[in-house]
């Protein structure tokens, strides 16, 4: 590398290549699954106004997810402060490639979706917005780095940009009416000004940080900081090591998932109050949007709860945890209990408002059950338990993977699997009929669920052989799986909508609900003793 810019860009891109790739896949998972499912059922009607709403939501989700990957890739700028480089150079050669990548990713994913599904998503408007918004958010983060102002400043700027983006698709306080197909001159100038202002703010912020200047901490910020500290301070003596460790796990990680759900509900409720105020939309949004949020939060919870490392980048178990005088099975039980507690509280935070508000609007006659989404009318009896089971499966399985301290092979597996599925799907589009494709995926899911069942059995056999689980745990897990399968059979009996092969697949996948009981102690042992 002969120049400073090339060295800076190489370092940035090299350290973040996997995160960016992973986040690209994650950000596009939902649209790919959604559009594939819609097309399979012949419901891919791009003329439907709901598709504009879908576009607005999915593009922003993709921007958010890829942006999170970008933040990971950028890392702490302080690592570069000692280099003999001007602050403006540091900022330029991080901000510029970040903007270009952001625009490129947004443009390319829209173009790919257009090519595969013909959804006619606009390309340039969202791509240019994504680049400018990325710059603005990064700039604000650098400006308020290591201060309690950061979440508030990012929230404010992010919200303002989100609202502006919304106005490109129709009125601010109503549903979007059109795509942002053409970028006008004034819009171009606005985005350019945002980017320029972001650059100036970023240079100022990084300069301040480089000089070690801090922002004044007002009393109210300190008060918020204290308020946001997880849980209350333990006062009494712990009765056992397990109790102390559970307190540790909850204080360090367990609270995050319920807190995020609470935050999501407050944001969603606030949005509903400002933009909508329709009781029917509230119930539907709370139930369906909230259910989807629970899945996402399960993922987030798993990533946090399963991380036994010193920081977010290093998942290898640190000395402090590794030298607790606890056995691996004890530690695993505590961590699973922490995960269960976290999922349970998160679910309660969402389920209680769902039940209370549903009863309120139905009993007061604000909404007639008959007018609700047909899915809700059919799913009312299994949706709440499923919204508890789903996040548990996601959270516990992901946590077990994280607990190995070796997420790289699993990331590769997920990336490889996703890529293979995507490529296969595209290839099948052009080679098989709709019915044949459907058949193919059913068989593929059956194979995957068979592998899951066999894998779970194998995990239990290994854990039992290494005396990490007891026979009651094995029988209990088997009983739990049988109960879940029985529940699935009952649901089919009440409402026989799913083909038998799909039910068999689901039955196999339900093994994931109990697999963590065997996987967690094995994962911890693998991480703790290397």
């Amino acid at each position: 590398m002969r120049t400073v810019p090339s060295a800076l860009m190489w370092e940035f891109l090299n350290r973040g290549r996997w995160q960016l790739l992973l986040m690209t896949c994650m950000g596009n998972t939902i649209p790919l699954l959604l559009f594939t499912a819609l097309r399979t059922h012949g419901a891919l009607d791009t003329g439907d106004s709901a598709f504009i709403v879908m576009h607005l939501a999915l593009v922003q989700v993709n921007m958010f997810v890829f942006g999170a990957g970008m933040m990971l890739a950028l890392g702490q700028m302080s690592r570069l402060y000692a280099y003999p480089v001007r602050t403006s150079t540091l900022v330029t050669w991080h901000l510029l490639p970040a903007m270009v990548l952001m625009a490129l990713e947004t443009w390319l994913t829209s173009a790919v979706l257009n090519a595969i599904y013909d959804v006619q998503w606009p390309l340039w408007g969202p791509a240019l917005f994504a680049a400018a918004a990325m710059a603005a958010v990064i700039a604000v983060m650098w400006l308020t780095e290591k201060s309690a102002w950061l979440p508030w400043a990012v929230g404010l700027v992010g919200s303002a940009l989100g609202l502006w983006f919304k106005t490109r698709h129709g009125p601010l306080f109503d549903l979007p009416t059109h795509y942002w197909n053409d970028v006008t001159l004034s819009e171009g100038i606005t985005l350019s000004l945002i980017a320029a202002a972001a650059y100036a703010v970023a240079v100022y912020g990084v300069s301040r940080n480089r000089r070690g200047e801090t922002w004044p901490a007002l009393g109210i910020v300190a008060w918020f900081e204290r308020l946001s500290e997880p849980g209350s301070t333990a006062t009494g003596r712990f009765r056992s090591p397990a109790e102390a460790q559970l307190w540790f796990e909850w204080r360090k990680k367990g609270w995050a998932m319920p807190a995020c759900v609470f935050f999501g509900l407050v944001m969603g409720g606030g949005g509903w109050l400002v933009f909508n105020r329709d009781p029917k939309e509230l119930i539907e949004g709370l139930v369906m949007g909230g259910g989807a949020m629970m899945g996402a939060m399960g993922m987030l919870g798993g990533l946090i709860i399963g991380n036994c490392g010193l920081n977010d980048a290093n998942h290898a178990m640190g000395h402090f945890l590794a030298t607790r005088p606890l056995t691996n099975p004890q530690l695993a039980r505590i961590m699973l209990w922490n995960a269960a507690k976290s999922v349970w509280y998160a679910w309660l935070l969402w389920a209680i408002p769902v039940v209370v508000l549903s009863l309120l609007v139905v009993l007061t006659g604000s909404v007639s059950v008959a007018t609700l989404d047909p899915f809700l009318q059919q799913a009312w009896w299994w949706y709440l338990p499923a919204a508890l089971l789903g996040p548990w499966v996601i959270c516990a399985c992901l946590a077990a993977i994280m607990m190995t301290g070796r997420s790289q092979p699993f990331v590769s597996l997920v990336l490889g699997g996703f890529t293979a599925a995507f490529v296969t799907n595209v290839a099948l589009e052009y080679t098989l009929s709709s019915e044949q494709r459907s058949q193919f995926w059913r068989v593929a899911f059956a194979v995957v669920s068979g592998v899951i069942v066999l894998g779970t059995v194998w995990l239990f056999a290994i854990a039992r052989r290494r005396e990490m689980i007891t026979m009651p745990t094995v029988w209990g897990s088997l009983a739990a799986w049988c109960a879940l399968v029985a529940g699935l059979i009952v649901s089919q009996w009440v409402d026989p909508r799913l083909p038998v092969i799909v039910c068999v697949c689901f039955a196999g996948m339900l093994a994931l609900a109990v697999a963590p009981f065997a996987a967690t102690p094995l994962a911890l042992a693998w991480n703790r003793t290397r």
Partner: protein
Amino acid sequence: MPDPFPSSAPPVVNIARVTRQFGTKTALDEVSLVVPRGGVFGLIGGNGAGKTTLIKHILGMLQPQAGTVQVFGLDPVANPVGTLGRIGYLSEDRDLPNWMRVGELMRYTQAFFPNWDEAYAEELRSAFDLDPKAKVQNLSRGQRARAGLLVALAHRPDLLVLDEPSSGLDPVVRRDILGAIIRTIADEGRTVLFSSHLLDEVERVADRVAIIHQGRIVLTAPMDEIKDTHRRMTLRFGQSVDRPPTLVGALSCDGGGAEWTYICNGESGQLRRAADAIGATVVDEASLSLDEIFVSRVLK
């Protein structure tokens, strides 16, 4: 009355022919080491010599690829409660939970150790000038080390393991660790194993030393014995020689003409007789510092 050092009691740590590789690098190469009960055991070696790897085996954080590790007669991997429950450990990277307050850290750690001595913990907290309400993340490096030391000591462990305890610390904290703590524990008949590359510290407090170099133990012996058996001898020959004659027990040699200085391993009388045998006269003889012994051993 505590056992005298070295004790006849079973060793606290018994490592037998342990080998460990990381990729192509051999971190430990058939290392055997016995840490007897009581006293201070200094593990010295340069950066990357294998000190931390060896300590991680003792803590059960690494599984030997060959050989065995026993701590208190138990396998630390198979029996973490039985071993870690009797060990106090201060890591080199001062890995403590940043989000905890000092008071919480004490209360949390207490739960794992039935022998936790509340009065002693409070005494240490006061002596180390640690505010119980202070967050660990806000502590200075020295305060962090003191907090780590507090929770490692307050349960009066049978074995205190300190990995580079004083690296990066100011003299006051070093004095706390070395002067006040390590000797006290050893005097109570308990065992301290501490690794360091600051040899003057080891020389001051250690009763027994092991030198580790490139994954091998090159010397292990009581400190007094090491110092008694390592000497610098200046020999004068009858006439100028181009290359120094081989002296039995010599580890290294420097000089020129008729006078050569040897760093030797052996008793004074034996070495003098060996000098006579090659026709040289001893013109000067001095004992060595641990630093000089270490250098002569690892550069051999």
